[in-house]
């Protein structure tokens, strides 16, 4: 056997294994050109990164700029990689990690929640909707559609409360986010 030094168990901590995964929200400013979203999504799938939520829309029409908000999770090393890999794409102007920055961003989601029910359930659903400041945007004799905005956690808890009251389906926008304070990205 030609191993020169004893291959005993390493005394050095493994490189990444012990880092905990964190949830980060990235705001990505891109040129609104064909394929840019495919590039971003392809990057995430190709390199095995997670996408928890992704929203995109053109935000500055004259400059042809779109903003993509991505919620992802990974170890700090992976999050740093994601940011650098995104910055490497030619059509990407800027990437800001809203979770990491000195002033964390504000996050909101919008959900439309369809609930079906009669009698006591129906009244309870309305009462809860009121408490959550959800608006009724469609009503029938046995169903409501609520519109609710808020942080992800609020929407989650509203949905879980609607579940026993006759929740039919939910449509959500995913997270949009913006940094606090006077400065833009």
């Amino acid at each position, binding site marked *: *056997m030609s*191993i*020169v030094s004893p291959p005993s168990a390493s005394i050095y901590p*493994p*490189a990444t294994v012990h880092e905990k995964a964190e949830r980060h929200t990235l705001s990505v400013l891109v040129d609104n050109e064909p*394929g840019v979203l*495919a590039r971003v999504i392809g990057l995430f799938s*190709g390199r095995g990164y997670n996408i928890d939520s992704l929203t995109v829309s053109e935000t500055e029409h004259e400059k042809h700029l779109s903003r993509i908000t991505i919620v992802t999770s990974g170890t700090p090393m992976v999050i740093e990689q994601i940011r650098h890999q995104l910055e*490497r794409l030619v059509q990407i*102007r800027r990437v800001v990690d809203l979770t990491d920055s000195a002033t964390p961003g504000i996050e909101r989601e919008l959900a439309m929640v369809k609930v079906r029910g009669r009698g006591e359930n129906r009244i309870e659903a309305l009462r809860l909707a009121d408490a959550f400041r959800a608006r009724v945007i469609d009503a029938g004799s046995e169903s409501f559609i609520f519109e609710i905005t808020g942080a992800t956690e609020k929407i989650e808890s509203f949905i879980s409360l609607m579940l026993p009251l006759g929740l039919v389906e939910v449509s959500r926008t995913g997270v949009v986010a913006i940094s606090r304070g006077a400065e833009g990205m």
Partner: protein
Amino acid sequence: MTQQMTGAEMVIQALVDQGVEYVFGYPGGAVLPIYDAMFQQQKLKHILVRHEQGAGHAAEGYARTTGKVGVMLVTSGPGATNAVTALTDALMDSIPLVCLTGQVATHLIGNDAFQECDTVGITRPCTKHNYLVKSVNDLSRVLHEAFHIAANGRPGPVVIDIPKDVQFARGTYQGPKAVSIKTYRPKVKGDIDKIKIAVDMLANAKKPIIYSGGGIINSGKEASHLLREFARMTGFPVTSTLMGLGAYPAADPQWLGMLGMHGTFEANWTMHDCDVMFCIGARFDDRITGRLDAFAPHSRKIHVDIDPSSINKNVKVDLAIVGDCAHVLEDMIRIWRAEARQPNKQALAGWWKQIDKWRGRNSLAYRSSNETIKPQYAIERLYAATKDRDVYITTEVGQHQMWAAQFFKFQEPNRWMTSGGLGTMGYGLPASIGVQLAHPKSLVIDIAGEASVLMTMQEMSTAAQYRLPIKIFILNNQYMGMVRQWQELLHGGRYSESYTAALPDFVKLAEAYHGVGIRCDKPGDLDHAIKEMIDVDKPVIFDCMVDQAENCFPMIPSGKAHNEMLLGDVPGDIEKAIDERGKVLV
């Protein structure tokens, strides 16, 4: 300069304006207008390959040896899909390429037309950037932008997909100066404060090492000069990745040889035991680091790279400097001098003493033979016969590639063209065509394996057509040698499908391609045969029949650390060298 012309003419004009000499390509239905425009001009030379992959590798070879952008031109559908291997290869090895692909007419896109494929979709993950040009008025801007993106920052391949109707349409051509590239401006100057810290870390190092890579080559000849200067003024040992060979002269006493999986004992041990590692233009690839949790465990690491995403990807570093190698080295040298820095000479003397002990292990030693040609011996003799000549080497992928890296001593950059990141068998023959075109009077040798070279053998026909006297030096052991070596290490020596029965007669094959074939199977005849090969002014296939059982050492088995190298001359149970965790690694 603005002018009215057709899209096809714009392509030609833009290439001429970008200083392109050669276009490597293959015609087809969707690029006929461009080929027609090519026919009617004299400035660009088109090199007709025999397969689009060959066009890509030839353009890579040309780019790697000249530092210019390589250009390829292929048709839609299969033309584009055949180019994918070469594009991926260029992406992995940071080679600047512009690949023009024909596309079906815009109104047919998405209709499954004849020879249609989603070229931008297919090539998105294997290019630095790509374009589908839907309007002729965007074409000249896109063409110039593509050259800018391919060559700047970390270089890479760029695809421009041009529908046939856009090639016919007339529009306004704008020259390179009229096109402003707004978004892509990579940072080339390193952060001076960080460079100062790096200088301080290095000046105080007791056991330093310079670990350089292909980034030095990409940065240009100046970076190699600066690397040499920096090494000289510090007296530090230098090692390099496969891609960086030639940036530092192999004849220099501070040179440790290549590092990594098949690197030298001294290079790997110096890496393992160093206290400050200066990584410049390399990316901590898994072939280099081996087991990550035991990689240079006592070191603080400085990493210089033009691509921020290379930093902290595999290995966390203590100091990261984003910038171009030449710029950063220049600043480091300037600051080192301005601050009148001196290395820790006493510590360094002790360090060199230790390194010399490792060197004394003579890790590249092999058992020589009078009966059979040892592959290492063949490379040594090839080197001896060519070292005083103007020689350029390309390789295929496998054992022969590692032996070439170990035994051929490169003194200058841009003389070593190999497929490192992707490990593309079949790279070397077409690459040698690109290199020979760039250096028509020089000796260009593709050090090959018999399995690899058959993957792109058809390009011999290209070499014959353009009278390119490339030399294909095959280390023929009738095995896919590296596959067989791993089967020995991991799979009980069951050589599943790694033996090639019914190989062609390479001498006759050379003759069939209007070249010259030479066969040699005796060590005593080798020098004479090599001389004969060099003297022929035609493409040559040299069938060097070597020891079939020889393995490539030294070797860091997968999943092991730098200080757990296997050496070839120590008998033992080779099968147990790789543990369960290492087995799943490639």
